[in-house]
């Protein structure tokens, strides 16, 4: 009997045969892949599987434990909903890129050694860039190039770290790393780049909004969450992560205030959310790790839903910026409703899923008596609520800023709506029955989110955030600008570099 079939295998095989299958067969194939992979994951017994000897090393392709099972299962559910959302896409290159990308991300989650983990990590980077390039615009070509250069840098840091760690006798097992030494430090830097931790975060907000409308859904889930998984696995309880995570939680929501492009607002929002997870990982207690895992799982669901909402709006109207949208609740009522569910879920409005996940990290910070962390996280939570409010209002409720639009706007095609409905249902079900979520945690935990104290606390800061939103509505009017971020350094720096290279080449020619 076969004891382990790598879930990646379904995705890679599917990508290989996809070009030869057309029509409904293609849709059937696309949807069956995550289902088969999920069944494989759920039927796998915990332990070490898929051991392959290579160059004198034992590579492990199937380390199955509660952490990898949870991430693997949530990845597959999200992949299914995202593929449903993308079914109308005719270009099979986009599906192939998505399949290779998701297959590699899930492969990385089940990898038990550093080399096989690195292999999947890199395939994920190189396959995901096509989801940006396939948009086919000049801006997306350039953004994709910057994206891959940043990820090559991150990959090199990770590989350098692995080689130094293994070379100094650390072994190839991918478990909790020592917190000192050059090897683990380089590996941590590689992970932090992919987790979009400031100041090495700008690639995310630069590249994701330039991806295809369906590609951005996959991108918003798999790269940063694989990095979060890697940090949980390799660096739990690393104190610097508490500081970096708390800064991220605030940085992301501050930057999102001025953003006009809707996808870019979600990108900064995503950075803020990842900050919560990284804080939990840095705290490193059972509550901290469970909080990080809980947020990762739920964020995968509602962030993908929110990205789908904006992609649907762009698909139907052509608009990507708040300044060119508005008043769509009448013409896109289902999209509006599902977007509201996602927005309320991410903000943690009870009884949706964000409420039962967010308070765990805050409680973990209280447990270790770090008051400043709590204050920064709640500041971030106010922003996590402010921005969905802003987008719900600017895109769906406020005045239509494109009244002279020639096309008749309706809800998107059925497959796109169903992709969103699946995720919105999960937001409600996991919120009402948090035990389903808590059962997937790596550490055993007794936690009751629906206490009167928690509810009054959440209603207070959320209620007053909404009040400020109403008072400052005019100040939040979208403006047709972009905001400079740390990508300025390499976007302008590369021009200086090229100027220097040309000068040197000229001088060489003269001499």
């Amino acid at each position: 009997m076969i004891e382990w079939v790598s879930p990646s295998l379904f995705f890679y095989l599917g990508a290989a045969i996809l070009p030869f299958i057309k029509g409904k067969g293609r849709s059937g194939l696309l949807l069956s892949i995550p289902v088969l992979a999920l069944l494989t994951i759920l039927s796998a017994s915990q332990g070490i599987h898929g051991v392959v000897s290579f160059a004198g090393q034992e590579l492990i392709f199937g380390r199955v434990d509660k952490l990898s099972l949870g991430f693997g299962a949530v990845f597959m559910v999200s992949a299914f909903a995202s593929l449903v959302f993308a079914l109308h896409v005719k270009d099979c290159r986009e599906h192939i890129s998505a399949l290779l990308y998701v297959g590699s991300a899930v492969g990385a989650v089940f990898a038990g050694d550093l080399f096989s983990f690195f292999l999947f990590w890199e395939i994920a980077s190189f396959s995901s860039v096509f989801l940006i390039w396939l948009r086919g615009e000049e801006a997306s070509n350039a953004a994709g190039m910057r994206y891959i250069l940043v990820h090559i840098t991150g990959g090199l840091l990770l590989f350098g770290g692995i080689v130094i760690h293994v070379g100094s006798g650390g072994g190839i097992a991918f478990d909790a790393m020592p917190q000192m030494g050059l090897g683990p430090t380089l590996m941590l830097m590689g992970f932090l780049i992919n987790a979009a931790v400031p100041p090495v975060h700008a690639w995310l907000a630069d590249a994701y909004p330039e991806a295809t409308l369906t590609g951005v859904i996959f991108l918003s889930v798999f790269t940063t969450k694989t990095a979060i998984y890697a940090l949980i696995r390799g660096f739990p309880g690393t104190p610097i992560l508490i500081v970096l995570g708390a800064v991220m939680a605030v940085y992301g929501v501050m930057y999102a205030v001025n953003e006009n492009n809707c996808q870019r607002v979600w990108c900064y929002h995503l950075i803020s959310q990842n900050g919560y997870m990284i804080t939990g990982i840095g705290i490193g207690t059972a509550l901290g790790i469970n909080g990080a895992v809980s947020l990762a799982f739920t964020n995968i669901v509602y962030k993908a839903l929110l990205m789908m909402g904006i992609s649907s709006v762009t698909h139907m109207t052509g608009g990507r910026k708040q300044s060119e949208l508005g008043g769509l609740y009448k013409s896109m009522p289902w999209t509006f409703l599902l977007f509201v569910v996602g927005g309320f879920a991410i903000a943690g409005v009870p009884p949706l899923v964000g409420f039962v996940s967010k308070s765990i990290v805050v409680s973990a910070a209280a447990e270790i008596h770090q008051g400043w962390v709590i204050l920064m996280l709640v500041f971030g939570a106010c922003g996590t609520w402010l921005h969905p409010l802003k987008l719900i209002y600017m895109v769906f409720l406020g005045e239509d800023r494109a009244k002279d639009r020639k096309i008749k706007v309706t809800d998107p095609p059925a497959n796109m709506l169903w992709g969103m409905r699946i995720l919105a249902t999960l937001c409600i079900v996991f919120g009402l029955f948090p035990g389903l979520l808590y059962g997937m945690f790596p550490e055993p935990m007794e936690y009751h989110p629906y206490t009167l104290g928690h509810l009054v606390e959440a209603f207070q800061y959320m209620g007053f955030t909404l009040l400020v939103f109403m008072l400052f509505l005019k100040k939040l009017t979208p403006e047709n600008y972009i905001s400079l971020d740390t990508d300025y350094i390499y976007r302008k720096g590369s021009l200086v570099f090229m100027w220097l290279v040309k000068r040197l080449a000229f001088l060489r020619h003269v001499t």
Partner: protein
Amino acid sequence: MNLGDFFRKYGEDDIFCKKAKKGFYVFLGLVVISDFFVHHDHVNFLWDKIPGWWSAYGFISTVVMIVLSKAIGHAWLMKSEDYYD
């Protein structure tokens, strides 16, 4: 009635919108008052003893977030859309 008509009915009803706004202000008041009577499970920090603390903190945080981001943006970070072209 389909979903679009349902939203249109309430979205374009000014009386309903005004009532909803009033209801929200009452809700805010009730939430702050209730904090005086709610037992908090863990009292770790100074603010856990101040009723209405999270209301004030939520209000101030959001004001700071908007005002500070807009100020830094207008003074320094916000550039025209073709800045990098």
